[in-house]
């Protein structure tokens, strides 16, 4: 089945399985596989020894683990746990598939630390002082590779990456012998640390490939029965402006704008034909960085809260501040910003400005700039639909509405701004999919 041109790995696998069953080629379980297990076990130990990485503790657990592994391999799927990780400049995004269809046999054979990882993740919504599980984004009763379960979305600051790796070492993550699929720049930057500290080998994946995969997949499975994609109706009218579901069934061509610490803009023509059109260094990192310097805040949430309370017009110089009204000759409305932070050239105004206003102005400046670069790219690429993703948009309705407004207003209604519920998690979803269905 193709949705958005994306072939869902679970559906596909299910079909294959059915065929095999129908053709009477179903593999018999138990004894036969048990004998194969031993052989595989030996082979694996040999590999582990040769690599010099195996430990005695590994061997103790190897029997049941290997059975599970073979079982998974037989069904063309990797052993649990299933993670996908996206290590960005500011945030690490982790998706975790929690199987809900674990049989009693599996339960019994499940190794201890795998169980403990699952329990730890599922019984908490916060990890350490900075890790957070976005419960509201959880995808329930998802079928992935023939397994039913829930998909969880977890994030923590990239700064805490070493603590995370340390945890991987402490919990003997390496003994699970799973492949850790990682994307984002951190997959490259932290690869040596994963290897040296936690004895973990990363499978490094390109972040843009993962991003697109993730977007197409999540949109295809829908958000617990709701639409993943939405837009704002009447973006130019603050009262009438409303969030509305959008059907992204025939998405191409599509401009995909990923606003993380920095911004990447991709033109997507089909599921595996895309190009990075451009990018800008003025992104979420700039918003937070400037806010921290200007207001002394330290978190994205704080910065956003201040921005929500603030007024940017005290900070920015508007067209009407210069021309007394609209600059009609060039069709510039009086309310348009002529110079971001322009009022701050004046000493008196600098002295009287409040933090909230500065935060708001920073948000508006960064958001509008992304909007205008996006609009130019859309024109140059001749694309009229733009999907904005990335964690800059998390809990940031202000920016989303601004983008929706800007796209609509400056293009005279020609451009549509679309958003996705799982904002910044698509890269990690893409990484997970790569684990389940390697290309």
């Amino acid at each position, binding site marked *: 089945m193709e949705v958005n041109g994306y072939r869902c790995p679970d559906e596909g696998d299910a079909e294959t399985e059915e065929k095999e069953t129908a053709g009477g080629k179903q593999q018999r379980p138990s004894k036969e596989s048990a004998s194969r297990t031993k052989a595989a076990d030996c082979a694996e130990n040999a590999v582990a020894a040769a690599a010099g990485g195996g430990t005695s503790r590994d061997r103790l657990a190897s029997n049941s683990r290997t059975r599970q592994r073979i079982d998974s391999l037989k069904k063309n799927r990797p052993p649990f746990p299933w993670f996908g990780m996206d290590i960005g*400049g*500011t945030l690490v995004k982790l998706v975790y598939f929690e199987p809900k269809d674990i049989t009693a046999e599996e339960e019994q054979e499940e190794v201890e630390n795998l169980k403990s990882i699952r329990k730890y993740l599922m019984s908490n919504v916060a990890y350490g002082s900075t890790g957070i599980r976005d419960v509201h984004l959880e995808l329930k009763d998802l079928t992935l590779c023939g397994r039913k379960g829930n998909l969880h979305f977890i994030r923590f600051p990239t700064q805490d990456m070493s603590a995370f790796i340390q945890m991987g070492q402490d919990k003997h993550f390496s003994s699970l012998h799973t492949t850790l699929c990682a994307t984002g720049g951190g997959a490259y930057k932290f690869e040596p640390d994963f290897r040296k500290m936690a004895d973990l080998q990363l499978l490094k994946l390109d972040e843009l490939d993962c991003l697109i995969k993730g977007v197409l997949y999540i949109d295809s499975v829908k958000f617990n029965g709701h639409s993943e994609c939405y837009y704002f109706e009447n973006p130019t009218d603050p009262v009438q402006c409303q969030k509305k579901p959008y059907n992204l069934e025939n998405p191409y061509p599509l401009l995909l704008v990923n606003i993380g610490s920095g911004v990447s803009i991709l033109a997507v023509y089909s599921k595996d034909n895309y190009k990075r059109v451009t990018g800008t260094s003025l992104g979420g990192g700039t918003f937070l960085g400037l806010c921290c310097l200007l207001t002394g805040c330290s978190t994205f949430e704080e910065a956003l809260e201040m921005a929500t309370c603030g007024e940017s017009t005290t900070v920015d110089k508007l067209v009407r501040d210069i021309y007394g009204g609209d600059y009609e000759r060039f069709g510039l409305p009086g309310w348009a910003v002529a*110079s971001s932070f322009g009022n701050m050239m004046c000493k008196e105004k600098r002295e009287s400005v409040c933090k909230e206003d500065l935060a708001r102005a920073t948000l508006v400046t960064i958001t509008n700039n992304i909007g*205008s670069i996006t609009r130019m790219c859309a024109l140059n690429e001749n694309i009229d639909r733009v999907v904005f993703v990335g964690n800059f948009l998390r809990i940031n309705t202000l920016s989303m509405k601004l983008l929706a407004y800007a796209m609509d207003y400056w293009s005279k209604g020609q451009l549509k701004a679309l958003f996705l519920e799982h904002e910044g998690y698509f890269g990690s979803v893409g990484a997970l999919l790569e684990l389940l269905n390697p290309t």
Partner: protein
Amino acid sequence: MAACVEIGGGGHSMDKSITLPPDEIFRNLENAKRFAIDIGGSLTKLAYFSTVQHKVAKVRSFDHTGKETEDEPLYEVSVQEEITARLHFIKFENAYIETCLDFVKDHLVNTETKVIKATGGGAHKFKDLLEKKLKLKVDKEDEMTCLIKGCNFVLRNIPHEAFVYVKHAEPEFRFQTTHPDIFPYLLVSIGSGVSIVKVESEDKFERIGGSSIGGGTFWGLGALLTKTKRFDELLQLASRGQHTNVDMLVKDIYGGAYESLGLTGDLIASSFGKSATADKEFSKEDMAKSLLHMISNDIGQLACLYAKLHNLSRVYFGGFFIRGHPVTMHTITYSINFFTKGEVQALFLRHEGYLGSIGAFLKGAEEDNPNQYSWGENYAGSSGLMSISPDMFPMQRTRSGTFDMLEMDRLERELVNLPLLLDSSSYIPDTVDLTEDALAREYWLSCFEEALDGVVKRAVASQPDLQDARERAEKFRHKYRHKLQTLRHQPCAYGSLTVRSLLDTREHCLNEFNFPDPYSQIKQRENDLALRYFQKVVSSMEMLSWEDRQFALVKGLLAGNMFDWGAKAVSDVLETDPTFGFDEAKRQLQERPWLVDSYSKWIERLKGPPHKCALFFIDNSGIDIILGVFPLVRELLCRGTEVVLASNSGPALNDVTYNELQILTEKIAAMDSVIHSGITKDRLILVQSGSSSPCLDLSRLDKGLATVVNERHTDLVVIEGMGRAIHTNYYAVLRCESLKLAVIKNSWLAERLGGKIYSVVFKYEQPRE
């Protein structure tokens, strides 16, 4: 009024009541009219039109009704007053606006002026002050319209107006040749915000986009972050900072490059990204630098996106964010190179700060039709590019108290390209760019400085009856020496530095102090002398065989060209040894093979059919024109070739001027039937080049000359002399046959070309098929 302002002095704490040296800043106010003012955030630009009364040397034929007497000179030289039009543009700090307006009012005589055109953000703020002080009605003009009008004007009228900036290169400025067709282009004006304007023709332009992230963002945000108030200081901070301490780079995320996308590790992934995570103090310098990069990159990126969308490759940057600041020119250039992968060059303008005032002035002067004339930058009255790298001279960047000036002279004639240039857009008149060639620059600057004594002496000698000649000559010496010193430090101050620009600057300075034609008497005497030998030379030629005669003609032309007061070696000989004559010159001449020698090719060509029409750019008076050029002209006429003789419109050194040429030709025609019939049958035509330079810019020639060249189907261009054929045009490629000849009368240059003094260059070229 208290303290006196010293031009070029610094310090922004200066007393605001100042005494302006009137002659040096607001010049020619007594005839000033058509005022325009552009008041920006910190600088005011005043523009006005004025007339300058200055002396010109005129020559006039005596009315010989009676018999000619032996001792009477062949024509009369007189100095007359002439009035020419000049545009004045003066830039000063807003702080001085009241004082300046008072000064202008006090010196304004002309009463017909009723309005002042005003533009710029401050025009509104200062409206009342303007009306009160000047008693003129303020007439506001649209800022953008003025900007574009001004831009078109400088691009059209000032050669080397546009340049690209290359940090750490030698030179940092690469000036662009004036493109005959300036449209279409993109103008990115970076004031407090950014406007991106597409200009398609003189009257057609459109603001296609813009950005709110501009100079105001740098200034405002920079002031908040660093507690530094002044824009210039912020730039200085930035020039000392390290943005990598504040920005998150690709390598901070990837550990190295993002190779599959070709993003190098040093690229900025997130501006200010480190200040979002690292809990530490950041230095002012580093933050300022990061901010500068953020804004420059953003503007560059948008400019590129617009340029691409509208398919434009010429992008000019201006506005107070740029205005000659090497720091911002560098970051913008970097950004444009990055985003277009070198396909688009960021261009900057030397007179960018004046565009608004020029445009406002032009709006007010529409009835004078300023755009139908050609204008030229007056090097004597213009300050040149003030920009200096702040790392090198931090103090000079604080420009408070300085007055910057631009003066443009209305040229008598409209200037156009020589239609015979193969590719006018790639034509560069000058052979050597002294901004690039440090060795040559050093030589020529010294050479001109050494020659200064002689020039001063000559100037004084040319006006024996005028009491103040010595004083003015000393003023000239001071001014020109100052220009040379400026150029030593800032070779790019007036665009590309060339031998031509050094010569032209000298002429402008001489004119400035009313020495319009220091060589007039010398030219007169030499013309007189040479005329007496004309017939003898011609008849001696006629006795020769055809082949010998052709060689004798060329040799005569070359020998004649040795008589040149522009070359120091020759002027020494001429001053000390008056017996140095035509025959002596022939003996001194290099024997064949010459340094550059295509004589055989030339003679072969002469054996073929005659040329339809030859255009001859002549050089010196006296022996050169009379005994060198005219015999050859005569020969060409006899062959059936029409001849167009092009001479300078105004005086420069001992070069023949158009007026002199007319008289000389008349005299020669009176004694030579070939020349006579050439004139009467309209086969020998005299034209003026439109130039007053010892060199020749084939892209700025009198329109009348271009018309004649076209009408006559000119198929041969002869360019004679060092100034026109060596210093300039040596590499000029024409669509027809060309002959460039000169004697190298400077031993340094001769050596450089691989020869000795008095080496001969005889360069005959046929157009490529």
